[in-house]
């Protein structure tokens, strides 16, 4: 579904990604872990071109999306993204947050979009918040809404950039629960996280990134039970 070839990203003199190669298949739940500054968030943000790669190729559904001629807005409609800081639109109600993109991009009529939004809100138990503004919600609620907002576009793939890192501890569970359900429904997911429990339970593959590259890749069982590289062993000894 996504093929990444020799991906490089530099910020000024800072070489953040150093030739990442990876292949994501339909239905996989890829969990990316690694120390901060390892390039995992940049890698994720390159996948939907929020960061423009310095060099390298990204193919999505057989389309070379790093080609400057491609209509990136069209591509992004098929890739949901959930951010660490939720980024709900502060000037819009929850309902408007969810329906804005499908309606303005003319994928749905307003009525249809609202109906769909309510269905999704019910799935995460927040239908009664439809007319509230983001400012009045808790972090966990905001993140569940952010997931719903992405799902309203019926994406083929969901990207999660440390979705629970900004949450109070007692709210992490409710967000992971929604993500788990989403995984069970067959969604292809790429998740950057520090939640090792989630990686173990939901991931089909776990990647370890360090210094701008994927150092190790394995099934969750093997990844945690039999780490190969010394860097990963050291990392796991610190976080587990």
């Amino acid at each position, binding site marked *: 579904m996504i093929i990444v070839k020799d991906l490089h990203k530099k910020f000024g003199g800072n070489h953040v990604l150093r030739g990442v190669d990876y292949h994501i298949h339909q239905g996989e739940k890829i969990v990316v872990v690694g120390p901060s500054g390892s390039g995992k968030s940049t890698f994720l943000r390159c996948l939907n071109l929020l960061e423009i790669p310095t060099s390298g190729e990204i193919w999505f559904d057989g389309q070379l999306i790093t080609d400057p001629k491609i209509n990136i807005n*069209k591509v*992004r409609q098929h890739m949901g*993204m959930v951010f660490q800081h939720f*980024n709900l639109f*502060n000037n819009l109600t929850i309902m408007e947050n969810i329906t*804005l*993109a499908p309606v*303005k991009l003319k994928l749905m009529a307003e009525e249809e979009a609202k109906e769909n939004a309510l269905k999704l809100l019910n799935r995460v138990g927040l239908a009664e918040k439809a007319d509230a503004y983001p400012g*009045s919600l808790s972090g966990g609620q905001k993140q569940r809404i*952010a997931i719903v907002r992405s799902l309203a576009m019926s994406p083929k793939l969901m990207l999660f950039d440390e979705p629970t890192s900004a949450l109070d501890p007692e709210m992490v569970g409710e967000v992971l629960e929604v993500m788990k359900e989403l995984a069970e429904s067959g969604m292809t997911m790429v998740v950057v996280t520090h939640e090792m429990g989630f990686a173990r339970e939901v991931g089909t593959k776990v990647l370890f990134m360090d210094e701008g590259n994927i150092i190790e890749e394995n099934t969750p069982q093997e990844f945690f039970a039999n780490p190969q590289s010394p860097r990963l062993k050291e990392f796991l000894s610190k976080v587990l």
Partner: protein
Amino acid sequence: MDWLNSVLEKANAAFVEKDRWRLYLKGLGITMEVAVFAALIGIVLGTIVAFMKLSTKRNGKPTIFARIANIYIDIIRGTPSVLQLLIMWVIVMKDCKNGVLVACITFGINSGAYVSEIMRAGILAVDKGQTEAGRSLGLSHFQTMRYIVIPQAFKNALPPLGNEFIVLIKETAIVGYVGLSDLTRVANQMTSKLYEAFMPLIGSAIVYFTIIKILTVLLAKLERRLRKSDNR
């Protein structure tokens, strides 16, 4: 009681006799006409210039539009508005006999420079994550600005925008230079006509003050309404 009589007499001469209040009212009309149209031009122009100034190339360097915006802002802020008005009236639009039109355009262009910096600050104060979220959903840059960033930027910019409009109302007092009889000029003319300065000058000062006080109250109301999405 003599002083009271003399005050009333002076007030009578300054405002009531020969329906002189009509002149002040007409002057106020011109003041507000110029201020309101200039403010409209200023908001539109200022918003466009703010985006021009914020535009960057892929490598992060400013575009040609950003350079043009900078030159415009520099020139307008670097010269007195009286001179700008005279230059427009005597040189640039010398074939236009409509002083009000010239004044509206001049003050509009003038205000645009200040509004652009106000709007730029408002836009920069909107969290980058808002734009990223909009773009990640597939909305275009323009749609993201239109539906998400500009409404929030406008809210941020409302207090200084109100300030700018208030300054504008008072700054129109220089349109007498191009022969318009605005409120200030009417008061001035009346002073020479009656050999009496107190009533016309203080009277028109009170009118300015009242108009701006009403505006302040309305702006506070608008701000409260726009802030309703902030309830926490």
